[in-house]
């Protein structure tokens, strides 16, 4: 009896310590985030009071004349990230489905490992690959071909420049592909086997089973994976800076150079002289911070929802 009470008490104490640690960790996280947001707001106060909301809509960016408009960067970030998703989502979903549902087991390990390796490469390596391989290839072959066949669309008009929005979007797509692929792979792996057996026993083909039962079951988790990839694309700096052309102009053509929020901060912060310039860059940082935070929160929510459904579904 005595031993019993003793055991219970230590177990409880362990629980208590653990619980405290978690609470402390959570509080530290929140405080850190709040501190970053506060600091960014403080730094951008000057710019906020100088141009206010107009900052978001203005396209002029000329530090010499002290003109600061954020729109070209917002545009560049959104368009390059959207392009990245357009390419990466179908490819990475295909990879994830292949790895979980279709690949022979001897192939799953090596291919999965390679996908994870891609995710671990430093972004400057992607940038170098972009400069030496992707940009010449776009300038010399892909862009002229696109202009010839689809030149009537504004996105594919104008001179082929290599360095530009298209290059930025493609480098980004390759960078976020492993993120989306490996998270969706985990989501698909979590889909219980009784679901697949139920469908197969009804006389569905493998593909009908995947499309009709596995993917709907995993849907919100996959959306979460895509949003995580988007978060990475929005914040990626080095690789994009190396290939996007870094010109703060909004052009309809994807061949033309552009600029992203992260790139302009990285490029101009060390050389910025005027206080207003620094403050404008901080405001861009604040904006980027807010967008990334919101998207990640959304992703977490969606992944949490799919795992909850999985638990409910298997509890009977």
């Amino acid at each position: 009896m005595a031993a019993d009470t003793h055991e219970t008490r230590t177990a409880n104490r362990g629980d208590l310590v653990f619980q405290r640690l978690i609470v402390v960790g959570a509080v530290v996280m929140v405080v850190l985030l709040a501190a970053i947001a506060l600091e960014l707001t403080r730094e951008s106060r000057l710019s906020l009071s100088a141009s206010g909301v107009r900052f978001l809509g203005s396209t002029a960016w000329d530090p010499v004349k002290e003109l600061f408009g954020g729109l070209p960067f917002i545009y560049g970030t959104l368009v390059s990230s959207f392009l990245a998703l357009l390419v990466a989502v179908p490819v990475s979903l295909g990879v994830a489905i292949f790895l979980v549902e279709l690949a022979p087991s001897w192939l799953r390990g090596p291919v999965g490992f390679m996908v994870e390796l891609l995710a671990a490469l430093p972004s400057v390596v992607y940038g170098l690959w972009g400069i030496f391989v992707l940009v010449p290839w776009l300038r010399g072959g892909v862009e002229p071909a696109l202009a010839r066949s689809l030149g009537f669309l504004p996105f594919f008009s104008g001179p082929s420049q290599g360095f530009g929005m298209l290059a930025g979007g493609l480098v980004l797509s390759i960078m976020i592909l492993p993120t989306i692929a490996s998270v969706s792979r985990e989501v698909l792996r979590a889909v219980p086997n009784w679901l697949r057996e139920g469908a197969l026993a009804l006389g569905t083909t493998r593909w009908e089973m995947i499309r009709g039962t596995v993917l709907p079951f995993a849907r919100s988790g996959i959306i979460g994976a895509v949003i995580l990839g988007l978060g990475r694309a929005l914040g990626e700096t080095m690789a994009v800076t190396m290939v996007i052309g870094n010109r703060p102009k909004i052009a309809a053509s994807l061949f033309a150079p552009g600029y992203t929020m992260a790139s302009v901060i990285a490029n101009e912060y060390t050389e910025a002289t005027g206080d207003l310039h620094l403050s404008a860059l901080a405001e861009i940082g604040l904006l980027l911070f807010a967008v990334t935070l919101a998207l990640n929160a959304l992703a977490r929510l969606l992944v949490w929802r799919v795992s909850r459904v999985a638990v409910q579904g298997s509890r009977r």
Partner: protein
Amino acid sequence: MMKATESFVPTAEKGRVVTIAERESAILPAEKIRSVDLRASFGATEVLKGITLPILERQVTAIIGPSGCGKSTFVRCLNRMHETAHRATVAGRVLLDGRDIYRAGIDPVAIRRRVGMVFQKPNPFPTMSIAENVLAGLSLTGERIPHRMELVEKALRQAALWDEVKDILPRSGASLSGGQQQRLCIARALALDPEVLLMDEPCSALDPIATARIEELIHELGDHVTIVIVTHNMQQAGRVADHTAFLYMGELVEYGPTDRVFTRPAEQRTEDYITGRFG
């Protein structure tokens, strides 16, 4: 159904003396399925070691035996589900209406259409409503469904679930109780109008009332569908099955009419098992 077979004999053999042997074989129901020297393995481990067993048409056949003896594996070989498991292989033959379902060129998908399956754990599709679950076999394969509601009602009535769910058809299939979910899975299989229904311990997750409902259902279905039921419950086998097969360590020990197997088992191992001396 015996009547149908009997009335068939005189017309077919009109004007000829029918021998007793002929008459007996004609009265006996036809074999819907026969496994011939069926062997199944997971990797290098052989878990079914040559099983030859008839499954009679429009009869209920129970498969009994201790845990791990290969009952699930056996029924999963009858609709080619076994091979969907990791490293699972099959050798031997399974004749469905006399034709081997493992011969080259047979599409397992077509076999699973004809031989439906209900699993031990109820597994309705949680992303689908009750009505969608019933129609899943058709909708997943992209078939056109002309009279949706009629089909939903018919299958749910057959599965004795209609009265309980007719007002909540748009709700998720996962929102039902375990027994209701299992009957929903039966309805889902029946909506495809299968010739054979395989049931792997369909009542093991259910309370006695739900179990009784499902047994009743098996009785009714047994008139027009061939049923194979795996069960751990001797009383259940006695209540629902016309024939019983006893498997032990991957081999068929005994097969015969249920009454005979339970009252006068030919094998010592069968007697030991049904009297609870092992397993």
